[in-house]
């Protein structure tokens, strides 16, 4: 399995990680090696096998749909790189 530069650029965009053009070749090579390595799974017969989504043999617990926490705007914003008037701030998204 070989990933070309355009594919790597596309995945990087999906993952929202900026990649410099000069890094694309190297990265495409590395990722292709990894995908070649995992390709060996295709030789395993998995017909009729259910995908395993959890190792814990348990049903997801349910709780009452009630408020259990909150009212701590200071704690929530404590680590924000930028905050204003009790809100996180971001670059302008609406013109």
């Amino acid at each position, binding site marked *: 399995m070989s*990933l070309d530069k355009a*594919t*790597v650029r596309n*995945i*990087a*965009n*999906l*993952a*929202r*990680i*900026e*990649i410099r053009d000069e890094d694309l070749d190297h*990265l495409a090579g*590395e*990722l292709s*090696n*990894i*995908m070649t*390595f*995992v*390709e*060996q*799974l*295709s030789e*395993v017969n*998995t017909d009729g*096998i*259910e*995908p*395993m*989504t*959890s*190792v*814990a*043999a*348990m049903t*997801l*617990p349910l*709780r009452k749909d009630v408020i259990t926490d909150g009212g*701590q705007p200071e*704690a*929530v914003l*404590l*680590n*924000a*790189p*930028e905050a204003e008037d009790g809100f*996180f701030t*971001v*670059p302008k*998204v609406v013109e």
Partner: protein
Amino acid sequence: MRTLTNLTLAEGRDKLAKGEFTAVELTAAHIGAVEARRDLNAFIVETPELALEEAKASDLRRQAGQAGAMDGLPIGIKDLFCTKGVQTTAASHILEGFKPPYDSFVSAKLKAAGAISLGKLNLDEFAMGSSNQTSYFGAVENPWKRISDPKAKLVPGGSSGGSAAAVAARMVMAATGTDTGGSIRQPAAFCGITGIKPTYGRCSRWGIVAFASSLDQAGPMARTVRDCAIMLGSMAGFDPKDSTSVNMAVPDFEAALTGDIRGLKIGIPKEYRPVGLSDEVAKVWDQGIEWLRAAGATPVEITLPHTKYALATYYIIAPAECSSNLARYDGLRFGQRVAGKTLDEMYAKTRAAGFGAEVRRRILIGTYVLSAGYYDAYYAKAQKVRRLIAEDFRKAFETVDVILTPTAPTAAFGQGEGTDDPVTMWLNDIFTIPTSMAGLPGLSLPAGLSADGLPLGLQLIGRPFDEETVFKVAGVMETAANFTARPPQHPPCGCGPKGECV
């Protein structure tokens, strides 16, 4: 001072109870050891003042007859556990400066038991690595040295490399680790200490920086089996905040150390002896089998036929979950931010600057295998193979009580060795990953030294939620192995009559 830092957790606990020394004295001795071994780079943040305050409070609790199970015992916390008001980074630049407003469930439980944290221990960035060389805060050095080349700096293993190095170098009595594919067991083996990844669900993941949520599990790292049993007792327990935390009673793990393993069946998987396995590792494994036989257990050859696919399965599932979990690092709510003209540009620049090479690689692989058109071919396929791997273990445990394997294919290697190819580096976890895929408890303990003077570990794997049998067998093996070797002390502590270490 060395006398205090050489004590096991159990000895420290019992001597504190008898009043042979105070928690303040014990803590101060370990703070001295932390300062003396800064060369290892095991800590990202040291918190000596907080530790001494807690030690004073511990001594008062003891006077009042209210000492907890680990009261006054100095430990280290892997910097993947959120600690209230103390920087928590996951060894990543993107979280530099992050001070959580809360404690993780596990670290809060340890605090409630009276344990005293000396600070936050270094690790591979976001726990992704097997050599502790991917940390933004620099590599951790293994305190052990090769006889043939004592100047070479060796890796402590990873990702819990700071934890393993700090425990081995007597800076802390024990430490927390986390294990996704071997991150407690492989560094324990490389540093000559003991560590257990409990059954998935035994310890709450709440407040632990997430890597691969279906695999991540916290566990103790210490210098003896008993110490791991004591500490796991103070880490485990039901937490409604983690939907995969299991609501079952926490047994008295220490009570499992009866020393009697007569009649137990020990599985020896034939697939764990691949072509090219180091002779030294194979020899230690054979020795381990003999120890258990001599103690009255019966070795039984078993087969785990899908073993060879575990690594490839892991390197689809773990990156997939990591790409999803790490989507939260967006420069918005916590950690570092790099400005951009648009929101998307801010995300992309922040994440480019914040993540290291290995983390970026795994996010990209994970994004790819989850992307439209590839999900079934890779991710769903890997989840199916995962079930086959777990089934192998389930069948084996119909006939055996515990499984014995090597922990890692080699002893600790040098910093900078084998880092060129990510896939080669991943081979370190070839014996630990299958256990993780199946969610089973796995313990590593030191069983011998290589010809070059480095520790080699053996792994015991148990049935789900049967850590007790694992501890029981490990205790017998520990006695038989009588592993008394220690890493060289450097720099000399100056506490002996001629300045030598005692």
